[in-house]
């Protein structure tokens, strides 16, 4: 297979498996890996993490996390006055960051559930990453409404608990819907993440080097033995959870958008907020997955499992949803003009050319103009460009929430109540600190849990498909079938080391097995 040169921090070339050949599917796992090689690679990540570099990264994350602890202490002991929130901008960094993190937390379930329902097998290499990122991002997000209430020790009022006041939460309020949506989303995605990991934790148990890790992984894997009778119910559960998570993930950001859309404020009172927010969430979430996956695949030896095709596919999804987001921005402007409602018109002029116009312009550059480079193949196959574009989108998505919240609030109907918003250092350090929380959890995940869903990757490898039925033969690539005896019977070589088998297609690296598709 062709290679493309791809210097990224360290030089090197990548196997180019992004070319679509209608005669057969492209391989999802490169390097002629067998099942055991997949296990070795993924379990090996834990050893790769046991280095000075990991401790340095973890230390940096922990010190950022301490920013969060200190600012939260300051907030609890003093009150929300330490933030820059004021009248008229009563919602600021707290809600911006909440929406930002919840949005990032959407890609995980999208990749796990929706791509599963669409039978996108390439998701298997990145779904664990994305799901973990989801959990950690939702943890960061869930913190903000809790501390935003002002008296966090009364945050339990959010839940319908009978109390001495005889009061209940108001279920007509979108903020209450939010509690249920985010709470359910966190619970269901945690369950999804954890049960998805049980077979892989069982692999770690069976590979454990010490008694302590054997005991812990053994406990966490619930005694999984890989029984086919168990797999049968497990797969049914997985399918059902995907089918349940898909409407859930779409509902969560819709409900978040209701916080704004059900108000009367120009700039917030917009009926198409739900799909616009969902598309934005997927856009931002994929950008964060790429931001994390690109360095990880380079440094943790996952290049053959998170291949250039995965990066390419993620770029395409990002470009697609990015276009929906861009369309939403433009429709918003158009409707403001077309509505002939002068508050709306004034608001959008103010949004673009008012005191926060810089944020609006930067948002357009980050989310609309920069991602257009992903139309070009050279950009999608250059990891540096992809990484930079993903980070532009991360910044752009944060700015989008800033623009929606702050620029809508700061000038409403009566000029006498206009004002400006400036974040305080506490605001900024709390935001930085939430990244500390996110990365601390992420580095712990890399070190102690299976970073790639091994069982799922193995199940989409060509060796995983039996040959008992003749109807499997349509998976054969006719060209590959004539290329050599080894290509017609790749199944018999399962579990062997690369190099045990002569190459399939002429010009292929020896040991690289032909891909022969198959459904999950």
């Amino acid at each position, binding site marked *: 297979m062709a290679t493309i040169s791809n210097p990224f921090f360290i030089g090197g070339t990548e196997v180019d498996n992004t070319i679509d050949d209608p005669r057969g599917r492209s391989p999802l796992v490169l390097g002629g890996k067998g099942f055991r090689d997949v296990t070795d690679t993924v379990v090996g990540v834990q050893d790769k993490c046991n280095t000075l570099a990991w401790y340095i990264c973890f230390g940096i994350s922990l010190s950022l996390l301490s920013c969060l602890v200190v600012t939260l202490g300051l907030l609890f002991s003093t009150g929300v006055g330490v933030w820059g929130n004021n009248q008229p901008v009563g919602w600021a960094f707290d809600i911006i960051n909440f929406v930002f993190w919840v949005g990032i937390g959407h890609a995980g379930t999208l990749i796990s559930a929706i791509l599963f329902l669409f039978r996108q097998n390439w998701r298997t290499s990145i779904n664990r990453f994305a799901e973990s990122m989801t959990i950690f991002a939702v943890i960061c997000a869930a913190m903000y409404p809790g501390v935003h209430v002002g008296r966090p020790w009364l945050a339990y009022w959010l839940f319908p608990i009978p109390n001495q006041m005889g009061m209940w939460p108001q279920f007509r309020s979108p903020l209450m819907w939010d509690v249920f949506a985010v709470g359910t989303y966190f619970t269901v995605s945690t369950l999804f993440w954890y049960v998805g990991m049980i077979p892989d934790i069982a692999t770690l148990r069976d590979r454990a080097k010490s008694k302590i890790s054997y005991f812990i992984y053994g406990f966490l894997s619930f005694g999984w033995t890989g029984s086919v009778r168990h797999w049968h119910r497990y797969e049914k559960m997985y399918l*059902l959870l995907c089918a349940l998570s898909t409407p859930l993930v779409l509902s969560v950001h819709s409900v978040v958008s209701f916080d704004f859309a059900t108000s009367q404020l120009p700039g917030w009172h917009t009926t198409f907020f739900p799909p616009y927010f969902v598309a934005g969430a997927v856009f931002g979430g994929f950008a964060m997955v790429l931001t994390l996956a690109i360095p990880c695949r380079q440094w943790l030896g996952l290049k053959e499992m998170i291949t250039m095709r995965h990066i390419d596919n993620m770029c395409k999804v990002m470009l697609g949803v990015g276009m929906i987001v861009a369309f939403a921005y433009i429709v918003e402007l158009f409707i403001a003009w077309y509505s002939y409602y002068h508050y709306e018109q004034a608001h959008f002029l103010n949004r673009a050319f008012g005191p926060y116009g810089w944020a609006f312009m930067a948002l357009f550059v980050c989310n609309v103009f920069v991602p257009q480079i992903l139309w070009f193949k050279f950009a999608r196959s250059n990891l540096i460009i992809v990484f930079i574009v993903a980070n532009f989108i991360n910044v752009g998505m944060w700015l989008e929430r800033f623009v929606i919240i702050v620029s809508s609030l700061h000038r409403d109907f009566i000029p006498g109540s206009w004002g400006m918003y400036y974040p305080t250092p506490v605001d900024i350090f709390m935001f930085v600190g939430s990244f500390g929380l996110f990365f601390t959890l992420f580095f712990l995940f890399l070190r102690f849990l299976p970073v790639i869903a091994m069982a799922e990757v193995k199940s989409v490898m060509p060796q995983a498909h*039996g040959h008992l039925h003749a109807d499997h033969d349509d998976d054969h690539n006719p060209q590959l079938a004539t290329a050599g005896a080894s290509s017609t019977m790749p199944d018999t070589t399962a579990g062997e080391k690369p190099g045990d088998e002569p190459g399939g297609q002429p010009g292929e690296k020896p040991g690289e097995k032909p891909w022969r598709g198959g459904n999950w």
Partner: protein
Amino acid sequence: MATATLETPYGLTREVTLVRDPSIDASIDIEHSETVAVLAEYDTVDAVFYAADKVRKAGYSRWDVHSPFPIHGIDPIMGIKPTILPWIVLAGGTTGMIAGLFLTLFTMATSIPALGQFSGYPYLISGKPLNSLPAYIPPIFELTILFSAFGAVFGMLLLNNLPMLYNPLFRSHRFKRATDDRFFVVIETADVKYDEVETVKLLRSTKPLALERVED
């Protein structure tokens, strides 16, 4: 107290007095093990398909295949019936929906002072009806999903008898590769068809990489 008489080859005898009756078994078990299953190891999916087919046709019922990933298409070969899990999920979802309806309508639209702090709290907002169902749909929907997901995950664990932290299979060193790259057919000795010779003969005829007795 019991006594016993020991005889020597020289015709002499000796009486011994024993504190414990020798006809009663010792209370401390000597380490003993018992075969609970026979396992056969395979290295390809096709081999395990072949073996599973033979074992089912031989009429075994307490047997299983263990694999590092779900093998597609093996269920009919093993004769596995579809799981009832979807019904559990449906029951969970229905429970969640009813719970959501009850929670929102009871707390927002009823008031029973006799219930004290458990009574509902009707609160008129902008003249909207107290039982404004459309506004309650989001919490009801989320509770439906939440309970369905609980049904799916906990139902799966329950049907699979998990967590089960002790399993004699874990004593086998070979079986560690069941979560890695090897496939195992395991026939329990508790199976009515099990026969020490015939079962091993059957498994041997499927050409496994290895056969092993699982001791407990």
